[in-house]
C-alpha cells in the first residue's frame, strides 16, 4: 500500500530537487562560459566576428526551450547516444548561453560612452580601455539581470522532465500515476520550486541594489 501523505510526497519529490538544482547550476555555469566569448564577438567592430555571434544568439533564443530538448534527445541521441540528463544539460546550456550573451551585450552597450572617451583621453590602449574600464562596469550592469535569469532558469529546467530527466516534476508525475492526488502532488512540487525560487529572487533583487552605485549607464 502506497503512502500519499503530504510528508511522504514531500520526501519523494525532494529527491528530484537535487536534480533540478544541479541542472540550474550546471547550465547557468556552462551558459556563462559560452556567453562571454559570444558577447565579445557580438560587440566586435569586425563583421566576421559579429555576424556568426548574432546568428548563434538568435537561433539559441529563437527555438523554444522544449524544442531544443526534443531536438537533442530525440534528434541527436540516435546518432550520439545521450541519456536524458546530459541531453537536458546540453539543451539548457545552449539556451542559457544565448540569453546570457544578450545580457552581457546589453551590459557592454550600456556603459556610458563617456567612460570609453575618458579612458581614451588618458592614453589607455583600446584593449586596456575595454578590459580595465568597460568590462568591469558591463559585468556590474549584467549581474542583476543574470541573477534574475537564474530564477527563470530554475523554472525552465522543469521541461527536462518531458525528455525523462528525474527532476521534481518528473517524480511528481510518477507519484500521480501511482495513485497520488494530482492536486496535492503538484502543489507540493510547486512549493519546492517556491522554496528555492523565492529566496533566490530576493537575493537577485538585493544584488541589484548593491550593484547600482557602481556604474554609470548610458
Amino acid at each position, binding site marked *: 500500500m502506497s503512502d500519499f501523505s503530504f510528508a511522504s510526497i514531500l520526501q519523494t519529490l525532494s529527491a528530484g530537487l537535487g536534480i533540478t538544482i544541479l541542472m540550474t547550476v550546471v547550465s547557468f555555469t556552462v551558459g556563462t562560459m559560452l556567453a562571454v566569448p559570444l558577447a565579445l564577438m557580438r560587440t566586435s567592430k569586425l563583421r566576421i566576428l559579429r555576424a556568426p555571434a548574432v546568428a548563434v544568439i538568435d537561433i539559441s533564443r*529563437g527555438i*523554444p526551450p522544449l*524544442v531544443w530538448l526534443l531536438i537533442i534527445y530525440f534528434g*541527436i541521441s540516435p546518432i550520439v547516444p545521450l541519456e536524458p540528463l546530459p541531453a537536458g544539460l546540453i539543451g539548457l546550456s545552449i539556451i542559457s548561453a544565448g540569453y546570457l550573451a544578450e545580457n552581457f551585450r546589453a551590459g557592454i552597450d550600456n556603459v556610458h560612452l563617456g567612460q570609453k572617451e575618458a579612458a581614451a583621453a588618458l592614453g589607455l590602449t583600446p584593449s586596456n580601455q575595454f578590459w580595465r574600464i568597460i568590462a568591469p562596469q558591463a559585468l556590474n550592469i549584467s549581474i542583476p539581470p543574470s541573477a534574475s535569469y537564474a530564477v527563470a532558469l530554475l523554472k525552465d529546467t522543469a*521541461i527536462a522532465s*518531458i525528455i525523462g530527466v528525474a527532476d521534481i516534476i518528473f517524480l*511528481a508525475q510518477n507519484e*500521480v500515476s501511482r495513485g497520488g492526488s*494530482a492536486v496535492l502532488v503538484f502543489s507540493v512540487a510547486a512549493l519546492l520550486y517556491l522554496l528555492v525560487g523565492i529566496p533566490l529572487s530576493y537575493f537577485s533583487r538585493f544584488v541589484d541594489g548593491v550593484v547600482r552605485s557602481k556604474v554609470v549607464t548610458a
Partner: protein
Amino acid sequence: MFEHWIEWLPQLLNGLGTSLLLTACVALIGFPLGLVLGLLATAPSRLVRALVIAFIEVFRGIPLLAVIYLLYFGLPATGVTMAAFTTIVVGHSLNLGAYSSEVFRAGILHVGAGQREAAASLGITGRHAFFHVVLPQAIRAIPGPLMSMLIMVFQSTSLAFAIGVSEMTSTAFSIGSMTFEYLNVLVLAGLIYAVLCIVSARIVARVEEKLN
C-alpha cells in the same frame, strides 16, 4: 532532406495555426488580467495589495509546466474538467497575467507624482485623473515589453506538447515518431519558430526605437 520539408510543411503550418491561436487566446485573457493585477498591486488597501502580490509571486515562482499539470490532472478531481486546449490557455494566461502585471505596474508608477499633482492642480482627481492623465501615458511606455512577452508566450505554447494539444511541436514530434526523422522535422519546426520570433523581435525593437 529538403524534399521531406516540403512534404511536412503543410502539416506543420497547420500546427503553427494552433500555436498562433493559443497565443492569441492567451494574450486576450492574460494581458487584461495583468492590467487588473497591476492596478490592484497599486491599490490603497493593504490587504488587496498583499493578496495580489502573493498571487503574482506564486505564479512567477512556479514552472508553467507545473501549473499546466496541476490544472490538467488535478482539477478533474474537484469536478472541473477542461479540454487540453483550454487548460493551456488558462495556465498560460495566469502566468502571463502575473508577469505582465509587473510591466503595467511599472508603467503606472513611471507616470510620476508630478503628473498627478498637475492634474490635481487643475481640479482633475481620482478616477478622472487616472483614466485621462495616468493611464494614457502608462500605456505608451509599455508596448515594447508586452510585445516581447507575447513572443515568449508563442514559444512556450510548445509546452502544449506535454498534454497532447496538436500545435506545431506536437505535430513535428508525431511526424518524427512515424518517420523516425526526428532530427530533420524538429529542426524544421525549430527554424519556423526561430524565424517568426527573430523577425517579430526585430520589429518590436524597431517600434520601440521609434517610440523613444
